[in-house]
């Protein structure tokens, strides 16, 4: 009996070599290639940022490794350039514009998803279309506005313009999220004695937190790396953001100071990477919400 049972069991299973080989071909090798391609630029950045200029320009040295690592480029960034100032600027701008955008988007998204008012649908589409207008078209009228309000070289120039593309994006994302929350929960809260705003902040917002965090992360990432508006509205070295500062100030003439550039780029990418790794669970939940009911 036992023998028969065992032979029947092995019959249905595939041979061992097939299973392991299959797993390698289907899972491990593609993943490995993907990771290699994704992480290689980071590796290159790290290696380059720790090389001395001498080693960087040595034709005979192996470009893949560092022989004598040095913190020289980092030292330059923090003590001889305005890197710290740019980092501060970028952080302030990213947090402020993300905050403003989230606040507006939560209210707008909720209203469009829940309140029945005339033209709700057209407004929803209007917001979506706003998002489709490319910044390369918008920067001219925006520049005029910035000039009128005397905001050139002022952090507010960016804090106020980034929401123009962040709010439509976040609102659109949040409409979908709010719609996935059963209406009855709010109705129950209303009957239980809550006002519309209380029902929203006590019931809907806590439940929409994964969606709100996702929207916030997108907004933060977009404002952190934004280039065009920052390039146009900020000319003063003191007020530049990281992407513009690095490109404009660390490339002098046609000299590329690769060590400094790579060190700066690496440092600039760390906050976003940290942010993602903290919220990755929420982020995934936010992305897949609505795909499956429940």
């Amino acid at each position: 009996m036992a023998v028969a049972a065992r032979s029947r069991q092995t019959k249905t299973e595939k041979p061992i070599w097939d299973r392991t080989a299959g797993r390698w071909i289907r899972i491990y090798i593609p993943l490995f290639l993907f990771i290699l391609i994704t992480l290689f630029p980071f590796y290159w950045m790290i290696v380059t940022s720790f090389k001395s200029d001498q080693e960087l320009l040595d034709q005979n040295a192996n470009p893949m490794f560092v022989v004598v690592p040095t913190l020289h480029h980092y030292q330059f960034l923090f003590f001889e350039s305005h890197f710290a100032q740019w980092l501060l600027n970028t952080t302030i701008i990213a947090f402020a514009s993300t905050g403003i955008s989230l606040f507006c988007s939560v209210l707008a998204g909720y209203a469009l998803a829940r309140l029945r008012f005339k033209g709700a649908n057209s407004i929803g589409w209007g917001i979506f279309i706003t998002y489709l207008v490319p910044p390369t078209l918008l920067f001219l009228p925006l520049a005029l506005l910035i000039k009128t309000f005397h905001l050139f070289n002022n952090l507010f120039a960016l804090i106020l313009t980034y929401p123009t593309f962040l709010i439509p994006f976040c609102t659109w994302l949040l409409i979908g999220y709010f719609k996935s929350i059963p209406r009855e929960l709010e109705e129950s809260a209303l009957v239980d004695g809550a006002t519309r705003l209380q029902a929203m902040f006590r019931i809907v917002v806590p439940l929409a937190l994964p969606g709100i965090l996702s929207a916030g992360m997108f907004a933060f990432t977009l404002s952190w790396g934004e280039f065009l508006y920052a390039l146009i509205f900020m000319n003063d070295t003191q007020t530049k953001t990281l992407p513009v500062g690095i490109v404009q100030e660390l490339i002098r003439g046609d000299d590329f100071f690769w060590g400094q550039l790579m060190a700066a780029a690496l440092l600039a990418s760390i906050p976003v990477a940290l942010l993602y790794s903290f919220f990755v669970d929420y982020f995934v939940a936010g992305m897949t919400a609505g795909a499956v009911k429940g």
Partner: protein
Amino acid sequence: MASVSYENVTKRFAGDTLAVNNLSLDVKDTEFMVLVGPSGCGKSTALRMLAGLEDITEGEIKIGDKVVNDMPPRDRDIAMVFQSYALYPHMSVYDNMAFGLKMRGTPKAEIERRVTNAAEILELGPLLKRKPRQLSGGQRQRVALGRAIVREPQVFLLDEPLSNLDAKLRIQTRIELQKQHRALHATFIYVTHDQVEAMTMGDRIAVMRDGILQQVAPPREIYDNPANMYVAGFIGSPTMNFIPATVQGTTVKASGFELELPRAPGVEKGTLGIRPEALTERPKEGHAGLDLKVEVVEILGSDQFLYGTVGADAITARVDPNLKVEPGDRVRLGVDTRRLHLFDLETEKAIL
């Protein structure tokens, strides 16, 4: 005082859909009123207007003697149990029940007293710290009920609260709800599509169809004297037999039999209504009767249903379960002529 009254209430949705059409209904203080009808008949909309979750297009709704048309839900002193229970997923059972009281600024000690008390009544004590997703369907249902009870409202609104439960639990909860109604001394308005729930729980039943109220009466009255064919067919299982018939004086003639009515209805044609249990396999001497050609036999233990034909008409009869009948048999059935109904062909209203 917590009577509820609908006065000529109409609800029209965008696109001119008429959900509730000129509804007038008075619910007495501490009454258990059941609104029953098929889906889309406007019963839920009627309830949601009372809760303040839908605007009222025309007419007035009063709770006690206050018109509540423009009053937000939180000021109406009502509690509602939803079909999906609508428990707040991010709050514990305790917080779910306490939410309404917190919103009203009830002192903490009082909240705790009421929640503990309700939890005891509903046997939720050990579950207070759990989240809704860790509860079974029946437990969730009790939390939803508990959330309503702690509020000590004047009126309880229940929107199909039992439909997500399995059959056995549904019967238990039905009995539990009746007990609670008696204990709480509050007005209950209960919406369901299930005629058994309506019959068993309601002090009075309001039958609705296509937004129009058909009849309001106690269960016995609805069953024995339905106002029209719709109510007659909706209440009772198996459903009432409807047979086209012609009338001459007090004699009513169908395709396969003739009966004497207790009095002359004064029409020439109509639809005869006979409940399956008005037919009996023990016809009394001299009683009118009919011959049923049996096609299907259903034995339910306590009951036996015979489905067959008399002449050209399909007829269902409820007989003694010990009677031995095979499909194909002919059975002589007696008719209790005091329990006959006759409906107008055009208006479908009850004549007899």
